[in-house]
């Protein structure tokens, strides 16, 4: 005799598997997000800052080989045109040149210090002009370039998307299904059979589990193949953290679904619960950017805990609480390491100047 639990789980799985829109949201949508955001905030390297030069000297300087190593892209413009472009963000800096580059000559630098790269462009351009005016450096700088592993935005994003996906698929996959079954009187229909209610609930957990493995594996694999985001911590850690996330969000979904009569009301409640986590829990950007007073609230959100645990931070023992003491120690990283991502790495290219 077939077990009711297995049959219920199988039915849930088939229902989900045969629903193209559900598959889209779970598998395709996170990939689109990853690709879109990954491209939008991709590592730009030493992209040259655009500097508009104004004044009689400008064409002169632009024509010369400035030997700045590509750090600045110089163009000569009229003053009005240059300021207009600055206001539109088309150039990073406008320099009003004096008649001649000589000691005590005044040079105006126009830039918005809150705009990423502007301050850097200012320093670089000033350096260039100082040298042109005859300054001699007294120190010898020896730049040694190091590249940090997993320091790109996409490395930050993929663990966040995994967390987001676990939340979304548990909330909609379970909450919505329960409310829809109630509306269809399917819950009533099941209630008049000898079906054990525990089996019914467990079947949701089990089918979610099957999908969780598929979802997480798919997204992690995608990140690895397309963007080279490696799982640097333990796979077991990833599994344990994902399961804990599943437990938290299926519980939340059941809570919402338990008293909701209409699908619309359930959708409203689910959005109400999920939206703060979408915005605040650090899926897309680091929540430490929010004012300090909000941190206790943000950290209390389940998705924050999940994201923190998914994002390994070798330097900070604070994040990754979910996995502490779980015995998933790996050779080079602390126990909480799951998907490696140094916490400060996004600073250089996500809306921040690095001065």
């Amino acid at each position, binding site marked *: 005799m*077939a077990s*009711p639990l297995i*049959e219920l789980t199988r039915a849930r799985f088939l229902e989900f598997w045969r629903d193209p829109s559900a598959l889209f949201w779970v598998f395709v949508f996170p990939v689109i997000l990853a690709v879109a955001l990954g491209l939008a905030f991709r590592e730009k390297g030493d992209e040259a800052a655009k500097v508009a030069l104004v004044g009689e000297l400008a064409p002169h300087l632009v024509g010369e080989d400035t030997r700045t190593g590509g750090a600045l892209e110089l163009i000569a413009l009229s003053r009005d045109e240059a300021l207009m472009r600055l206001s539109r963000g088309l150039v990073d800096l406008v320099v009003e040149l004096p008649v001649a580059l000589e000691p005590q000559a005044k040079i105006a630098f126009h830039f918005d210090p809150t705009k990423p790269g502007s301050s850097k462009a200012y320093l670089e351009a000033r350096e260039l002009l100082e040298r042109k005016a005859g300054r001699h450096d007294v120190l010898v700088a020896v730049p040694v370039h190091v590249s940090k592993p997993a320091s790109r935005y996409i490395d930050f994003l993929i663990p966040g998307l995994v967390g987001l996906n676990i939340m979304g698929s548990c909330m909609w996959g379970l909450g919505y299904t329960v409310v829809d079954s109630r509306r*269809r*009187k399917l819950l*009533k*229909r099941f209630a*008049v059979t000898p079906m054990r209610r525990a089996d019914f609930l467990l079947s949701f957990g089990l089918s979610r589990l099957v999908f969780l493995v598929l979802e997480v594996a798919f997204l992690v694999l995608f990140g690895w193949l397309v963007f080279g985001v490696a799982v640097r911590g333990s796979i077991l850690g990833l599994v344990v953290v994902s399961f804990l996330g599943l437990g938290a969000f299926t519980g939340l979904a059941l809570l919402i679904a338990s008293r909701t009569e209409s699908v619309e009301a359930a959708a409203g409640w689910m959005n109400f619960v999920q939206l703060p986590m979408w915005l605040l829990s650090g899926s897309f950007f680091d929540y430490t950017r929010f004012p300090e007073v909000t941190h206790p609230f943000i950290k209390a959100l389940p998705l924050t805990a999940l994201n923190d645990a998914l994002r390994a931070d070798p330097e900070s023992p604070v994040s990754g609480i979910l996995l502490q003491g779980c015995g998933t120690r790996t050779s080079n990283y602390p126990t909480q390491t799951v998907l490696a991502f140094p916490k400060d790495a996004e600073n250089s290219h996500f809306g921040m100047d690095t001065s």
Partner: protein
Amino acid sequence: MTAIICRDLVLKYAELVAVSGLNLEVETGECFGLLGPNGAGKTTTVEAIEGLKAPHAGSLEVFGQVWGTRRDRALRKRLGVALQETRLPDKLTVRESVRLFASFYGNTSSQEEVIGRLGLTEKATARVERLSGGQKQRLALACALVGKPDLLILDEPTTGLDPTARLAIWDIILEFKAMGGTVLITTHYMEEAERLCDRVGIMHAGRVVALGSPQELIGQLGADQVIELEASLELSDAELGSIEGVRSVSRRGDRVVILCRFPAKVLPFVFEAAARTGATVSEAKLHPSTLEDVFVHLTGRRLADG
């Protein structure tokens, strides 16, 4: 052996009394019909019998057992239920749905046999969302029958179906009964009740207002013929009532409904009156009285009324 016993059953939704003092007994092996318009309390009664709704007062036993004990699951194994308009999961096929429901019961009929008996073999691999209304209803019955129930409870199983689909459902119910099963069915189609039920209880405003076999109830009218007239002539109830054998006269708009024993005495009277006054009789129908007429006689409303 009695399958279902209700004694002074009271069922409420918050403060709304849906069933007030219902008395009912259904014997094993019989098909019992609960008749009444929407809102009469049929579905509420059925849900209490299924153990979905606790009685507010009175007693209720199914196969000698009350609901709410440790033996509930054992009792549920003896019930096969088709609720009013259950929508089974759209994405599952017919075979998968039957298989799911079969897994809840220990002792089941062969799933393929049940699917075959309900004429769904050709649709076995079709998803529920692709089935017609009649096919969906047959699938609901398949899910109810696959657990080899002793008691089949059907809440308006043919509502909204076309005549062919309805006949197919009736055949399945009669077959179940022929094999010794007990059936409790609710309907507001009197034809369905007359065709299927050994006994019916007519419900009105939360009570059973008449109980007996369809023939008995019709016999209680004391008039086995019904005349329905649509005519422009003025005939008072007193005039009509004075004719021999006329049991009752009721009116619905222009329509006059006369319950009588001797239509041959009523009709000539009507036509003579019309000929005398030059009035027209646009319609005159004569038919044997039905449960519908019993219901109208008892309540002044029609079964199909909401």
